[in-house]
């Protein structure tokens, strides 16, 4: 106990020390975003979240466009997503998120493409609506199998007063297919998060409940929501749900289609993995259509099994029995994975800075491998995320909201974790420091990490990151005098 208190004090001291590096006003602001978890009084570690990043601090955050085009809409594979505005936004978000889909790119699927209206000065001066109309016609001619078009607004669109809604309505009627305007200009809100919300609302207003299932439906129809199929995550999760006897009628939005979004209101239950980015639509469907929703977590066997049972408990004996059978079938594989990797990873300490659900959802998977998360935080979480997170954190865990590059570096230098999980902007900083790192947005070009099929991949990747023989080479063997 006294050890714990000592650790607690040490970490609180560390947080204070890091804060000293800021100018006064920024320090006051950043102070509210940092906390050390006190197990005895978890209410004391509430952090302020979802407010503006301070200018100039090097936040990891992105923008509303990234939240809509990059996260929610981009994975809808049978629609063409126009990055509406100058060329950059679409270029930087092109084919980089790894939201896999089954389909032929440029023929019936349009995910790994960068479609841009490439605004020029004249478009800024005279408006881009005419160009947008012409673009939609050009896309129709080139891609006859597209099932719809979305217009993802970049900053200038909202500043110059274009009426993309009018264009969308007119073209949608003319083409008899969804043409959907999204007001996700990058200056809206404080992070990606508002982009998720805006995208949810647009789906609600332009698509939801507009179509029926291809059949009469079954009592076991569910929608898989908030899974972006990074490296095939949604496929691994869907597999489990189907083996449990459920029928997944919609995938939001990894490997998803407009049809699936539109008929989701015919599902009996919404299962949501990434709460942050899609709770809005689930809440709406509950209010409007009485569709219940259940959060779940398919990272790591402990959480997967716990959540399979939680989901099954919402159904009848048939589903519950099948669920137990499925768990039983997977047990030998889970055991083999843990037996292989846990000895190599036991006791290793992890620092996380990610988005969406991962700062909390992945903790169980690390724990299954004997690892401990000693610091975690969200790029763009809200208070409800932190409430859900703190409950699962151990004493003296450092919690940071929208931490700056400076903060993360200071924490890492001091805590010397065995692994950091964050994004590509952060990755190479920690490589220089000699700290093992995995990109935990993109799964570092690996995956899936969801489900029973994802867990061995996760375990293997952590093992290879931490036990990479290269780390031992960083320190050179030469004595200093031989350098001079």
């Amino acid at each position: 106990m006294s050890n714990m208190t000592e650790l607690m004090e040490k970490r609180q001291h560390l947080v204070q020390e890091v804060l000293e590096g800021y100018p006064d006003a920024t320090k006051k602001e950043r102070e509210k975003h940092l906390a050390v978890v006190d197990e005895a009084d978890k209410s004391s570690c509430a952090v302020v979240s979802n407010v503006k990043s301070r200018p100039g601090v090097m936040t990891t955050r992105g923008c509303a466009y990234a939240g809509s085009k990059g996260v929610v809409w981009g994975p809808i594979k049978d629609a063409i997503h126009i990055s509406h505005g100058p060329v950059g936004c679409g270029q930087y978000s092109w084919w980089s998120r790894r939201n896999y889909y089954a389909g032929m790119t440029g023929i019936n699927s349009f995910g790994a493409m960068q479609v841009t209206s490439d605004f020029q000065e004249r478009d800024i001066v005279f408006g881009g609506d005419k160009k947008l109309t012409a673009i939609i016609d050009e896309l129709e001619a080139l891609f006859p199998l597209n099932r719809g078009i979305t217009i993802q607004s970049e900053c200038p669109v909202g500043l110059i007063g274009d009426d993309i809604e009018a264009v969308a309505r007119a073209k949608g009627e003319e083409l008899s297919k969804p043409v959907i305007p999204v007001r996700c200009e990058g200056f809206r809100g404080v992070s990606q998060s508002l982009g998720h919300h805006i995208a949810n609302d647009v789906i609600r207003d332009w698509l939801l409940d507009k179509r029926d299932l291809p059949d009469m439906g079954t009592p076991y129809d569910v929608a898989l929501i908030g899974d972006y199929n990074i490296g095939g995550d949604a496929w691994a999760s869907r597999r489990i749900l189907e083996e449990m006897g459920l029928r997944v009628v919609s995938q939001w939005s990894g490997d998803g289609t407009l049809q699936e979004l539109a008929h989701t209101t015919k599902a009996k239950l919404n299962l949501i993995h990434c709460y942050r980015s899609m709770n809005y639509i689930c809440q709406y469907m509950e209010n409007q259509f009485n569709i219940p929703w259940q959060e779940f977590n398919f990272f790591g066997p402990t959480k997967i099994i716990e959540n399979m049972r939680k989901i099954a408990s919402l159904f009848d004996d048939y589903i519950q029995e099948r669920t137990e059978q499925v768990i039983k079938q997977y047990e030998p594989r889970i055991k083999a994975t843990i037996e292989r990797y846990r000895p190599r990873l036991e006791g290793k300490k992890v620092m996380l800075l990610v988005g969406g659900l991962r700062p909390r959802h992945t903790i169980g998977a690390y724990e299954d491998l004997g690892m401990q998360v000693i610091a975690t935080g969200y790029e763009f979480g809200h208070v409800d995320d932190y409430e859900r997170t703190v409950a699962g954190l151990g004493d003296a865990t450092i919690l940071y909201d929208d931490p700056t590059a400076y903060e993360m570096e200071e924490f890492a230098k001091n805590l010397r974790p065995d692994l950091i999980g964050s994004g590509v902007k952060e990755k190479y900083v920690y490589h220089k420091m000699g700290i093992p790192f995995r990109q935990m947005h993109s799964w570092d070009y690996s995956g899936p990490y969801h489900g029973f099929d994802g867990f061995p991949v996760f375990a293997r990747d952590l093992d290879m990151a931490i036990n990479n023989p290269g780390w031992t080479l960083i320190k050179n063997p030469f004595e200093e005098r031989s350098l001079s």
Partner: protein
Amino acid sequence: MEDSTSKSTASKVDGERWIVKDHNTLFESPNYQKQFADKRIFEQGATEEEIASVEAWTRTWEYREVNFARSNVLINPAKACQPLGGILAAAGFANTLPLVHGSQGCVAYFRSHFSRHFKEPFAAVSSSMTEDGAVFGGLKNLREALVNAVQLYKPDMVAICTTCMAEVIGDDVSSFVADFREEGVVDANLPVAFANTPSFVGSHITGYDNMMRAILSDQAKGVSDKDSTKINIIPGFETYVGNIREVKHILQALGVEATILGDTSDALDSPATGEYIMYPGGTPLKQLRAAATNRATIALSRYSTKKTMDMIRKRWKQDTMALIPPIGITATDAFIKEIQHVTGCDISEELLRERGRAVDAMLDSHPYLHGKRIALVGDPDVLLGTVSFLLEMGAEPEHIVCTNGDDDFLQEMTALLATSPHGVNAKVWIGKDMWHLRSLVLTEPVDLLIGNTYAKQVAKEADIPHVRVGFPIFDRHHLHRFPIIGYNGTVFLLQQMVNAILDDLDRKSPAYSFDAIR
């Protein structure tokens, strides 16, 4: 257990060998393939027949005509926006922090983009403007950004450029910075360079030019000292750290003293030592400040240095020469001759030997490149250098696509092609994109595609080898650490091209032609 679950286990102990199936193989298993097929009921997508028929149509001349009829949308363009180039220019100076004024998402994108290419950290900050900034302007944000960034990241210089948001609302950054100096918010001794880099004008190469011009004109005062033998070299929008090192090697071999203005070679290729250093390289600011009094300036890029070179000519009164990147023998010869012309240095034995080796290597590999039809896509400068080299090899450029090429480029490339009988079949396409390129390659096939990572979609559909040249290169490692310019770089590029062709030949050759010796 022979049920469906255990049959396709994703990982297993296979004898002693532990196998983990990740996305590369996992989803090929029958149960996932069935999952995909079953999911189609809910997708209400096109039928297999429709897909096959449309796919076949997109390979036709008829489709190509539809494709080239468009004048509004770009699909898979090979260009990015101005501030990306702006912060690359800034990153080439010692202890310089790029600050991008406008929405914060842009900076997240730029940093990711560069980190994916260089596999290095890329430091840059944003003034994080939001909706109220759109209404009231970004003065407050920029002030706070400078205060925070200077205290946290302790730069010796700040280089500010703009996103389209700041440009559209018309923030006057120069007067903002002047105010900050008056208020004492910005230390009188801290250099702050500023460039407008609107995303809706030009491309990343324009942004590089604007920022480079701003930094040089802001920092280096005076005029050319005609007695000086020291020269400046400006790499241009250069994404090969190996190229800059090769330039240094050439200068050293010639015994010429030079300042590289915008030297990213150490800044974006730092060693793993156990310590993270935020500014690991770049042109020392002292050298930057002395650059105006040097004898002359040579740029290894024409299209990303136009305004910069113009400024140098007019303000620094220097002799200037903007070359195409020295790729291949002729272009490297021209670069060295230019240095000789300016400095009066002698050619060195070392470089002559390197030249001879490069020519020797080209003669060795020539049969596999002569007459080969080549498609290229990229930035204007890289295209000019690469085509110049290909013509030396007797290779035949067929389609040259340059999304950010202008009329000057069109003329210059046309003139270059006209210098060789191997250039007669080439068609130059400015303002076109990689969806156009796809049509070109599918209707008029080629043997080799040269372009950045994104071009791999076209290469795969056309089933042709792809040599990655340009920016970004995300999917092959370390190419940017090696030079493709100078005599040494020429050998490296040649090696990639000939071996790509030979790999393809081996993969496709009938058994009798599957030769041991090539």
